């Protein structure tokens, strides 16, 4: 799947050291369109949309924000906490807006799964269906994410 010059620029911004230390692509050898297309296929198989997952992530992040950065237990299943540090990040797709450096960590006690995401992850999943490349520090496998957030 060939990339347009604009998509090549996006991939350049996803390289290590441009927006974040280790970038958004990890050790993945697929290009941007392939990464997105493959994850979209998984979403279709799971019967859930990227937007639904992103909204669920936002719900959990908001719950911890209300609790003043301390861990919260939701529905006796989800143990969630958000750590906020100084600074903001831009979207690598050059979408308008900047995102606070927040890291939400969620443990699904029932499934024994822990996942973590940033405010920027929520945006890239919702708006671009981008879950990051394999090996990226904040890569979210859609299948695991769905299990952690909804099961």
């Amino acid at each position, binding site marked *: 799947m060939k990339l347009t010059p604009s998509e090549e620029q996006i991939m350049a911004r996803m390289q*290590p*050291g441009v927006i974040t*230390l280790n*970038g958004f692509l990890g050790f993945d050898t697929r290009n941007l369109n392939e990464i997105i297309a493959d994850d979209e296929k998984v979403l279709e198989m799971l019967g859930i949309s990227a937007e639904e997952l992103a909204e669920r992530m936002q719900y959990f992040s908001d719950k911890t924000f209300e609790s*003043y950065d301390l861990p919260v237990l939701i529905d006796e299943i989800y143990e969630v906490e958000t750590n*906020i540090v100084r*600074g903001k990040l831009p979207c690598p797709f050059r979408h308008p807006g900047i995102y606070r450096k927040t890291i939400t960590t969620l443990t699904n006690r029932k499934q024994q799964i822990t996942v973590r995401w940033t405010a920027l992850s929520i945006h890239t999943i919702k708006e671009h269906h981008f879950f990051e490349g394999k090996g990226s520090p904040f890569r979210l496998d859609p299948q695991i994410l769905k299990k952690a957030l909804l099961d």
Partner: protein
Amino acid sequence: MISRIFIDIAVACGISTFLALVLVIAQRYLADYGICKVTINKKKEVSVQGGISLLGALSDQQIFLPSACGGRGSCGTCKCQLTSGGGPVLPTEKPFLSAKELGDGIRLSCQVKVKGDIEIQIEESIFNIRRYRTKVIDIVDYTYDIKGITFQLIDPQRIDFKAGQYVQLESQPYGKVKQKAVRAYSISSKPQDNGLIQLIIRLVPEGICTTWVHNHLKVGDEVFLTGPYGDFYIRDTEADMIFVAGGSGKAPIKSMLEYLQVVGTKRKMTYFFGARTCKDLYLTDEMKAFEKVFPDFKYEPVVSQPCPEEGWEGKLGYIMPYFPEAIRDPKNTEAYLCGSPGMLAAVQKALVELGVPQAKIYFDSFG
């Protein structure tokens, strides 16, 4: 047949080379905007090379607008008011500008290309901002993820700042990081020590600049700092004061207390420092020592999740329930807050509910 192919390739290469040359010449002569005039606050004129960003042009003239992203149009902090020139607002600027700002001619200076004479309005305090060449003279581990770094100013040798303000630090390329990064950090030293700057920097996961500071910066290294910036500083009144900080938010409050130690004050002051575990507490003895310096000062560390083995016997849980015992007259109380947005939101809500006027709550919400 083969010769025909070679001729076609040669013709294609020739055309490409010709077009490239045309582009270079066009760039050189048609896009040459020459020297342009930037008039600042209707009283100062500077001549700049046209064709570069307004942010860069001003920086070349030693006028430093704040910029946390180094001019990439992603932080929205390099705003200034254009009263003449500058061309239309770009789509890259609009997300950062409110309707009122757009109406007032506010622009992102990093996105404005200087193509002709421009008139701008900036705050007078920006003329005090300088780029400092410094040398690291001390690095201290305060906690597992927080370091204190002291920089000696080399050129210029002195800085004039208010306790609570911040500087921008330029990190250098390292490892996979091929370019410099610019990030803002509050000054933790007092203004009276104007030959040095201390910063308190917490390691940010995946942070380009903080990883450089924590893993690559050494005593003796040369570092460039720009500043001072910010409007978080002590108001000169007689009101009681409440300080609230968490993590590296201790930096500006430390600067304020050290400043007050030099100038003297009789104001009633209470300082709440929120930490998750005892391992996140630092400079506790130094802050406690202020209780002997000031006639009415109390340092109150509050730990939200102490580990059982830590044996914490101090204040527990949220900071907010302890406010009533520290506030004697809400209307005559100023609050100075520095920490994460979540903490600040909760603290502000509690203070307002107790009757502290919103206008007297000053904060630095981690950039």
